[in-house]
C-alpha cells in the first residue's frame, strides 16, 4: 500500500523510499529506534508531513493527493501518539465527532457498538476527555478512530506513557481483537518486543529507511537478530 514513500518537513527529507503493504485482518508493525522516522511515515500518510516522493494506495485507490479530511471517507483512520482525543469534549462527543461523516441516524447506534467493544468507556460517556486516565484515553482514541468503520487503522505508539497493565490491555487485548474484526492495522511501536508478539509482519526502520521486513514469526524469540538490526550491524 505504501510504494517508495519519501517524506519530511519543509522540503527536508526524513523518510526515504519506504514500501509497506498491509492487509485486512492482519497487523503490520513498524519498529525502530528513536528518531528513525516512524511517526513521520505515519504523518506522511495522513498529510501532516510532506509526501516528497512515492505513492500511497488504499483498497485500489490512490490517496497520495487526497486532502487530510477526505482520507477518513476513503476508509483510513488514524490514532496519533499525542493529542489523540478532543480534550475539552466529552467521551460521547468525541465519538460523535469520530462519526462526523456517518449518516446522522447511524451515529448513536455506532456509539453503542463502540461502547460494547470498549466496556470501560461505557461508564464514562459524560466525562470530559481531558480528565480520563491514560489508558481510558487511548481506548477512547481508538474507539473514535473506529467510529466510521475504517478499512485501515494507523496507530502511532499507542502505548506511549501508559502503565504496564494498560499497555497489556491495549496491546495484547484490544488491538488483536480489532484486527480480527477485519481492519488492516499499521502499528508504529516503541515497545518492539510486545509489538512483534501480536503482529503478523514486522518492518524495522532505522535512520528513515526500512532495513528489513519480515514475518513476525521469524523474529519472535530471535532477539539477538532484532538487536543487531536495531543497531544497524549487517
Amino acid at each position: 500500500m505504501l510504494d517508495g514513500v519519501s517524506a519530511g518537513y519543509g522540503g527536508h527529507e526524513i523518510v526515504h523510499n519506504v514500501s509497506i503493504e498491509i492487509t485486512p485482518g492482519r497487523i503490520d508493525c513498524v519498529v525502530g529506534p528513536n528518531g528513525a522516522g516512524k511517526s513521520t511515515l505515519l504523518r506522511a500518510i495522513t498529510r501532516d508531513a510532506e509526501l516528497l516522493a512515492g505513492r500511497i494506495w488504499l483498497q485500489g485507490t490512490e490517496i497520495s493527493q487526497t486532502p487530510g479530511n477526505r482520507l477518513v471517507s476513503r476508509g483510513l483512520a488514524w490514532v496519533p501518539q499525542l493529542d489523540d482525543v478532543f480534550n475539552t469534549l466529552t467521551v460521547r462527543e468525541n465519538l460523535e465527532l469520530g462519526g462526523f461523516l456517518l449518516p446522522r441516524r447511524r451515529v448513536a447506534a455506532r456509539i453503542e457498538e463502540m461502547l460494547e467493544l470498549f466496556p470501560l468507556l461505557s461508564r464514562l460517556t459524560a466525562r470530559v476527555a481531558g480528565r480520563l486516565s491514560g489508558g481510558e484515553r487511548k481506548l477512547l482514541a481508538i474507539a473514535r478512530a473506529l467510529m466510521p468503520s475504517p478499512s485501515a487503522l494507523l496507530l502511532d505508539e499507542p502505548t506511549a506513557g501508559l502503565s504496564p497493565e494498560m499497555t497489556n490491555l491495549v496491546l495484547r487485548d484490544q488491538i488483536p481483537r480489532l484486527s480480527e474484526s477485519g481492519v488492516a492495522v499499521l502499528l508504529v511501536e516503541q515497545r518492539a518486543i510486545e509489538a512483534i508478539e501480536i503482529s503478523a509482519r514486522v518492518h524495522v526502520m532505522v535512520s528513515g529507511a526500512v532495513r528489513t521486513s519480515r514475518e513476525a514469526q521469524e523474529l519472535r524469540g530471535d532477539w539477538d537478530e532484532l538487536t543487531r538490526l536495531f543497531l544497524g550491524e549487517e
Partner: protein
Amino acid sequence: MSVFISALGFGVVTAAILAISAVGFTLQFSVTNVFNLAFGSVMTLSGFVAYWLNQVGVDIWLAMLAAAICGGLISVAINELLYEPFIRHGVNLFGMVIITISVGLIFDHGLQAVVGPSFFSYNAPAGKALHFADFVLTRQELAIIAIAAALTAVVQGALQYTRLGKAMRGLAVNPALARACGVPTRSVIALAWFVSGALAGIGGVALFLDISTFTATTGSEFLIVIIAAAVLGGVGSPRGAVLGALVVGVVTEVGGAYWNPQLKDVLAFSVMIVVLLVRPQGLFAQLANERAVAR
C-alpha cells in the same frame, strides 16, 4: 441601595453590548488561534454600513441585520485574502498579531480618509424609558439586552448541541484530529470567521447606538474593553466571554457609582489583570482551548 441596584442595571446594559462582541472575538480566536486585533475595525465598518442604510431610511434593526451579514463577509474576506495566506507563508502567531493590527489600521484610516474625522449618529429614537423598581432602561436598551441574550444563547447552544458546533469545538482544541475525523476544516474555519464577523457587526451597531455618536475609529477604541471581557472569561469560552462581559460591565458601573467614575475603566482592567495573575487561564476556562500558543 438604590444606587447600587441602578448601577447593577447599567452594568447589565454595558455587559450586553460587550458580550455580543466578546463572544464573537473569543469564538474566532479559539477556532483559528489568530488574535484578531482588526475585530474593532470590522465592528466599525459594519456599523457604517448600518449608518448608510439608516440614512436612506432603513430601520435601524433591519440595518443591524445587514451589518451582521456585512461584518460576516468582511471577516471571511480578511481571513481568506490576508490572514490565511500569511499563515501559509509561515508567519508565526505573534507575527499574525502584528498583521491583524496592520489590517485594523488600514481599515480604520482608509474609512477615515473616506468619511473624514467627523461624528456620526444613527437616526433611531431610544424609545420610552421604562422603570423597574430602581432600574431605568429604554426600549432600545431592552432590545439590545434581549438580542445579546438570544445571540449568546444561540451560539452557546449551537456549539454545545449541533454537529457543526461540536466540530468547531473539536477543531479548536485539536485541528489535526478534527481533520482526521473528516471535518471539513476550511469550511468550518470560514464559518467561524463569518459568525465572529456577524457578531462584530451586531455588536458594533449596538455599541454605536448606545454611545450615540461614533467615528471611523470608535470600534477599535472599544476593542480593548471587549478583549478584556473575553480574556477575563477565559479566551475560547463563549460562556466565559458573557460572564467576563458581566464582570466588566458591573465593575465599571458599580465602581463608577461609588468611586471616581473617571477611573472606572481602570478598575475593570485592574480586575482583569489580577484575575489573570491568580488564574492565568481566565475565570471560566473549562471550555477554553487548552492548546498552548506557540511562540
